[in-house]
């Protein structure tokens, strides 16, 4: 038993929240120089576990050992003092400051000294960052590199990466992996949180798989295949969605021409001459890294942004201009929208599900003489819960009490109940567990098969290739021409996501979708 001492050792860590047991006797060992994946669905307890390691949540029971010594990590400050760093999924950078200035807020030293250290670390770990550049002009990848640099310059022994690839285009992911390997070769332990199996299999030495707050296995991901990992992660097999031939009479339902839009926020992406059309019985996918104008595009389609036709922008529904209508008016004509933020936009967090039904369906017989018909509203909520198999406490459960996946199923069901002609869905399965994601995708395909026009905005290429008929790529407010999914592959779409729209046409023609 001459094993080296683990950098971090958790034993029997347990944390209960009112409604769930987030961590149930979790064990975790991270060795120096190891890239250790923590794999699990949303709600499996990964985040809670990381918060415990980083000191922002105290466990109810269990022990934490750091270099063989028992420790009680009481705060993130204490974790950083021990040598534990964390790179969060959501960045905390000041847009108006430079990279070096942002880093100086967390790391002692003058700007000049730090710039020197930043350049050195950039070179050593392949983290391409210009210390004097302002954050506002940077891409998401660059911003993430600043976060990582900020973490590295505090000389941690262990770095926790919370879903770091979710914001990166495919090429950026490869670059991140190189950096992480370089860090590991310096003896730094890395905890890599993800639910993307291919990434974990490509990068990690060990994977701790979690399900329902428990550790269900510690495996070598390089020898496991995706199916066995999935089975471990969700406890059952998931059938891929069935995708029939294109249906409907194929007439154009939604058509956008010459859409230009300059948001009030000077740092938001400007939409430039966007053209798209969605036909009956097809799913159009808009691929692209978030922040390239998808938000403004979906708002313009759903009516949250009302367009002035004198600027040449036109949105037509079956030949009728609808650009001047608000969300209510467009919904009445059959244009429905599922936003990516579920809590606070798609649903009111503190309202019950029954109340949340009223958000988009208040015209459909649920209101009489200006008064709500509470019985009907409640009935519609329970019907939606039944048809979508939403796991919740019933129509009186608050939206915030549901898991992300269940709430998304509820919202999707609510919009489907309106029998849309056009359904626009932004990141429909973002942060949703595998089972719910499969159910939601199947519902979207079913809607297409019934002849509706469906438009999906997603940054998950796997999802787009799985369910879409045609793809357009969004980059810096511009939209590429549409290509058929069958005539392109993930690599070429990835290049287009980085701005090279011509790559879409360079793909080998009539190739079967390149997804295993």
């Amino acid at each position, binding site marked *: 038993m001459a094993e080296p001492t683990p950098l971090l050792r958790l034993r029997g860590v*347990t944390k209960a929240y009112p409604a769930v*047991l987030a961590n149930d006797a979790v064990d975790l060992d991270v060795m120096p120089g190891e890239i250790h994946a923590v794999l699990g669905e949303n709600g499996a307890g990964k985040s809670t576990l990381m918060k415990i390691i980083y000191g922002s949540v105290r466990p109810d029971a269990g022990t934490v050992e750091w270099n063989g010594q028992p420790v009680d990590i009481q705060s993130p400050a204490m974790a950083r003092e021990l040598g534990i760093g964390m790179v969060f999924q959501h960045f905390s950078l000041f847009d108006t400051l430079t990279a070096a200035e942002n880093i100086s807020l967390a790391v002692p030293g003058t700007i000049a000294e730090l710039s020197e250290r930043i350049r050195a670390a950039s070179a050593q770990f392949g983290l391409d960052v210009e210390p004097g550049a302002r954050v506002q002009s940077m891409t998401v990848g660059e911003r993430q590199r600043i976060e990582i640099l900020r973490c590295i310059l505090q000389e941690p022994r262990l770095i926790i990466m919370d879903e770091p690839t979710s914001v990166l285009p495919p090429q950026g992911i490869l670059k991140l992996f190189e950096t992480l390997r370089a860090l590991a070769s310096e003896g730094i332990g890395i905890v890599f949180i993800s639910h993307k199996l291919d990434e974990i299999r490509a990068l990690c030495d060990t994977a701790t798989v979690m399900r329902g707050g428990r550790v269900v296995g510690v495996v070598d991901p390089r020898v496991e295949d995706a199916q066995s990992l999935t089975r471990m992660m969700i406890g059952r097999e998931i059938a891929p969605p069935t995708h029939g031939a294109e249906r409907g009479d194929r007439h154009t339902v939604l058509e956008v021409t010459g859409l230009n839009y300059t948001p009030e926020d000077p740092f938001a992406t400007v939409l430039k001459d966007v053209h798209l059309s969605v036909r009956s019985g097809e799913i159009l996918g808009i691929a692209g890294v978030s922040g390239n104008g998808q938000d403004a595009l979906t708002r313009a389609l*759903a*009516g949250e942004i009302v367009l002035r036709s004198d600027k040449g922008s036109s949105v037509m529904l079956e030949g009728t201009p609808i650009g001047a209508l608000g969300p209510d008016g467009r919904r009445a004509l059959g244009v429905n929208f599922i936003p990516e933020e579920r809590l*606070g936009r798609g649903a009111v967090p503190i309202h019950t599900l029954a109340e949340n039904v009223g*958000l988009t369906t208040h015209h459909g017989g649920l209101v009489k003489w200006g*008064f709500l018909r509470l019985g009907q509203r409640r009935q519609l909520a329970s019907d939606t819960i039944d048809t979508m198999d939403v796991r919740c406490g019933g129509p009186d459960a608050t939206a915030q009490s549901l898991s992300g996946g269940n709430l998304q199923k509820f919202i999707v069901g609510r919009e489907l109940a309106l029998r849309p002609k056009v359904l626009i869905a932004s990141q429909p399965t973002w942060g949703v567990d595998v089972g719910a994601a499969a159910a939601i995708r199947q519902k979207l395909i079913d809607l297409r098969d019934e002849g509706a026009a469906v438009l999906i905005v997603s940054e998950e290429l796997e999802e787009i290739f799985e369910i879409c008929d045609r793809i357009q790529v969004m980059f810096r407010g511009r939209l590429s021409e549409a290509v058929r999914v069958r005539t392109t592959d993930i690599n070429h779409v990835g290049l287009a996501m980085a701005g090279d729209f011509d790559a879409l046409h360079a793909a080998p023609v009539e190739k079967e979708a390149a997804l295993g």
Partner: protein
Amino acid sequence: MARFVIEARPERSVWAPIQVSLLAILLTCIGGSFLFMAYGVAPLKGLEAVFIDPLRSTYGIGEVLLKMAPLLLIAQGLAIGFRAQVWNIGAEGQLIVGAIGASLLAIQFDGTTSPLLLPGMIIAGMVGGMAWAGVAAFLRAQFNANEILVTFMLTSVALQLLYYLVSGPMRDPMGFNFPQSISFGPSATFPILIPGTRVNASLFLGLGVTVLALIFVQRSLAGYKLSVGGVAPGAAMYAGFSSKRAIWLALLISGGAAGLAGVGEVAGPLGMLQRNVSPGYGYAGIIVAVLGGLHPIGILFASALMALVYVGGDFALLTVGVPNAVTGIFQGMLLTFYLACSFLLTQRIRRITPETVPKGAPAE
């Protein structure tokens, strides 16, 4: 080794607002005890003077009900705005303009016996309050001017307008230059409800508005839209609920209700327009709305409590000899303690003992 943790409540609790209000009242009593001790008054005797003595006589109860009417009206209106995150803190000014509006009619038609005069005054008062709040709504909706500042500053304007009117155009010509209007005739005042007290029929306005508020909040589409806009502006935008309409509606409702309260004063206990139309009802109404958990029924109880504190302050002056500034201090403590405890609306305190931690198998 037990310890206490603060954690999110798993579901919306009906009891939480009531608990928080009761806790705030309890803490206010404790704080008030120290205040009385500083004055050399036995705490229980002092609290008795404020909270119990007014209720011992018909007159005292009458005074409480009298002060409850305007507080109830104002708070019901404000609460609808507050739920929509529209912060009208100028109910005092809207009350004053409402009082002026009603008084204009009463003075103009002095001597009439028409039963239409009082309803006319009610409408004039509401319109006055709405118009005053409407200025803030217009500036907020068109220019995004902060309604907190605008409504607050308009209160000062309303006060100066009142001072001007009662010293000039609306002054009683036979009133020896006192800054007040003529006394209103019987057809311009609310009838007394309980003989021997000053309670008048304007209390029914307060109760009526409470019922309307309850229906509006719980059953109307407009009320639903307002509540969505207040707690989740993103969801309101997604649903297509107009935020401008919400601002207008919230301010017009609260302004109209405050204007009604103004009518209740000039056509009630005052019986004329004078410089002191309101002893700060417009501000106390904010406390009532918050203390009542922004719920129509909660506000009913909170307004009774706040009215009791108003009257109790006067009683305390007479019976135990503390200044009636006690009223303001108690109001302030109620609000402060309520806000301090309001994290319990969404959080709860739970005691953790080793036994309550679910057991997991210790790993090897």
